[in-house]
């Protein structure tokens, strides 16, 4: 039964977190990507196998599994396909899968494909092919625990769950892949190997099934762990792991993102420099203050007052023609200021002109009943706009009108806003 649950998730590669539709492919992937000797390109079967091969054949020490994630590069751990993955990592992976996506799509597809795949795959798995090589679901085996060379013999007789530590013996090293897996060694090409496995497994059903049970433990534990996480309501911990751990590429890769699974913007917004504190200078402060109540309710007359205030502010701040611009002129003024001073210093250029405006605005707002603001402005769109043409004509308005003709066009649009 544990098996069935397992089908819910795709086989995945512990070294790089990549998922596969089929464990066969996963094993091919591991051999090609993670267990290939960089010197002679021989494909080994496990990380330790590779390490021993390199040490003995090439006299080179390998300390990391090639193309693996930084935290999954341990070459001591024996992993073959899905076998030997540390239980906590299985849980983690399952958690992420279930936590994030119940992955309806993939799950639907999978059962069928996987049902077929699993028997064949698992059969060949640990007990047969990789006796002595394969790690167990028990997780990483401490190096010191190497079982004896006899292991392959014993395995057949042991209950599945006893097959735990299956690292190869130091003595076995040279032979390692070949010796421990006679059938495989003859057929290096990954595919042929599997057909052989298949036939083998059919030969000995006992071992075959025992494998199934072996793989069960990790499977059963995973769902529960996932649900536990949910019950805790512990969103953060698992989430935090998502970024650093989840990398779905074939090769060793890393997502450039803070470990926390929170958006960059949220993280950034926490920085003191971005705290939306009321600004030290009154303009912004007041502005903010008064706008809150402003949301409450407005009145047309006030809007006009406000507008007027703005206009005067604009006049004061801007120079010459911009001043004449009044309402529209404000923008005109700003523009000219900007054009001259340049935006670079930020609102630097604006501050003189626009800044003044801002200051004024709050004042005028302040004069209004606290309950008013919002509407004032909006009516402004409707009420004031129509006036604009006349108002604008005199000043440097023309250009502005040309710039934002939309304002006029907006009128009809703004009207029907009953939803």
């Amino acid at each position, binding site marked *: 039964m544990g098996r069935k649950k397992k089908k819910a998730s795709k086989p995945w590669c512990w070294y790089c977190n990549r998922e596969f539709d089929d464990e066969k492919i996963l094993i091919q992937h591991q051999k090609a990507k993670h267990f290939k000797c960089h010197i002679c390109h021989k494909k080994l079967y496990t990380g330790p196998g590779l390490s021993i091969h390199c040490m003995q054949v090439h006299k080179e020490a390998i300390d990391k599994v090639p193309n693996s994630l930084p935290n999954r590069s341990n070459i001591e751990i024996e992993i073959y396909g899905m076998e030997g993955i540390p239980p906590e990592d299985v849980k983690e992976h399952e958690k992420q899968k279930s936590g994030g996506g119940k992955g309806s799509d993939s799950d639907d597809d999978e059962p069928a494909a996987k049902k077929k795949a699993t028997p064949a795959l698992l059969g060949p798995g640990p007990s047969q092919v990789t006796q002595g090589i394969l790690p167990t679901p028990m997780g990483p085996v401490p190096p010191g625990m190497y079982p004896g060379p006899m292991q392959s013999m014993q395995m057949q007789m042991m209950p599945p769950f006893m097959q735990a530590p299956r690292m190869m013996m130091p003595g076995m090293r040279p032979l390692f892949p070949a010796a421990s897996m006679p059938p495989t060694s003859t057929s290096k090409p990954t595919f042929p190997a599997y057909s052989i496995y298949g036939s083998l497994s059919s030969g000995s059903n006992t071992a075959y099934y025992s494998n199934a049970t072996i793989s069960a433990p990790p499977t059963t534990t995973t769902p529960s762990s996932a649900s536990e996480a949910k019950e805790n309501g512990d969103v953060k911990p698992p989430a935090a792991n998502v970024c650093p751990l989840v990398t779905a*590429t074939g090769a060793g890769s*890393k997502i450039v993102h803070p470990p926390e699974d*929170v958006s960059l913007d949220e993280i950034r*917004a926490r920085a003191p420099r971005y705290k939306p504190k009321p600004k030290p200078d009154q303009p912004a402060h007041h502005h903010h203050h008064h706008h809150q109540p*402003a949301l409450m309710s407005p009145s047309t007359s006030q809007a006009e007052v406000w507008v007027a205030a703005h206009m005067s502010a604009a006049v004061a701040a801007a120079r010459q023609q911009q001043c004449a611009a009044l309402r529209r002129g404000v923008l005109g003024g700003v*523009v000219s200021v900007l054009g001259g001073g340049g935006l670079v210093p930020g609102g630097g250029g604006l501050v003189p002109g626009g800044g003044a405006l801002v200051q004024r605005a709050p004042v005028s707002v302040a004069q209004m009943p606290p309950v008013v603001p919002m509407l004032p402005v909006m009516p402004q769109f409707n009420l004031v706009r129509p006036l604009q043409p006349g108002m604008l004509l005199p000043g440097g308005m023309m250009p502005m009108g040309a710039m934002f*003709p*939309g304002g006029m*066009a907006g009128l009809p649009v703004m009207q029907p806003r009953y939803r």
Partner: protein
Amino acid sequence: MFNQLAGAQGNPNKDLEVTSPPDDTVSALEFSPPSLPQTFLVSGSWDCRVRCWEVEASGKTVPKAVQTMDGPILDVAWHDDGSKIFMASTDKSVKCWDLASNQSIQVAAHEAPVKTCHWIKAPNYTCLMTASWDKTLKFWDTRSAVPIMNMNLSERCYCADVDYPLAVVGTADRGICLYTLEGKPAEFKRVESPLKHQLRCIAIFRDKKSKQPTGFALGSVEGRVAIQYVNPANPKDNFTFKCHRPPATTGGYQDIYAVNDIAFHPAHGTLATVGSDGSFSFWDKDARTRLKSSEMLDQPLTKCAFNHNGQIFAYAVGYDWSKGHEHFNPAKKNFIYLRACYDDLKPRST
């Protein structure tokens, strides 16, 4: 580290630099709607400012105006008539900036920073849609202090897009919610993200023939984009592709960068992605091919936009916090570049 190695010069794609760029990272970038005869570009940035430039046919940019809010800007949106700009900020408010009067007034409020704002123009109504980290989605008649409609999101809003009659919102925990805007806004369905990582951006695309919104592209922090149809004719129509993963450098590890923004070309229906890796790419989702990939810049690209007729592609360059605050260098300048893109985005076949 990668950034320093990559672009020696700041503008390897030789694009037009927008004058007087923002003082801090650009968080929002929008061209003016077709209702305006001229082209304006508006940016919102982390320096709490919203800037407006006029983009002349020559590509010359003229700074026009600036507005300041009390917190960093997270999004901007144009009113469909081009007369106003909505600005969403971490100060939990959205303001409406009337360009004619150069006044801004608060039109929406949330309990937390407002991540997105979009102007909705339906035949029978108009309203402002805002989504926030307070896990709500609100629709506002801009004249009222109370939202017309208030909907709960499953999580904090991370991205949203609107193309009448479809609205989509992507949230933390990989949630996606679709809304139909016909008649009035209503939740349409919630879907599971096809991407296994945090959502970062979302953009609606239209059907080639009907020109109606038919699906959306999602970008995640894991250098991957998913193309999703609302009602896929064939499940195979939905797919994902990898992007913004520069070739492995030292150490053999491949760095995978966030897809910071996605924009669809208004005429061709092809799309552009910009990434934390400092590059942009153009894609043809139907042919499932990449049309172009840019040279690498020395800083992340945070936002991109097409103007309404698809002649201009704008992208913003600045630090996006992807390597944490330690890598933030306030002295580093931010840029916005413009590029003539019409031909680059033509679909491959046809």
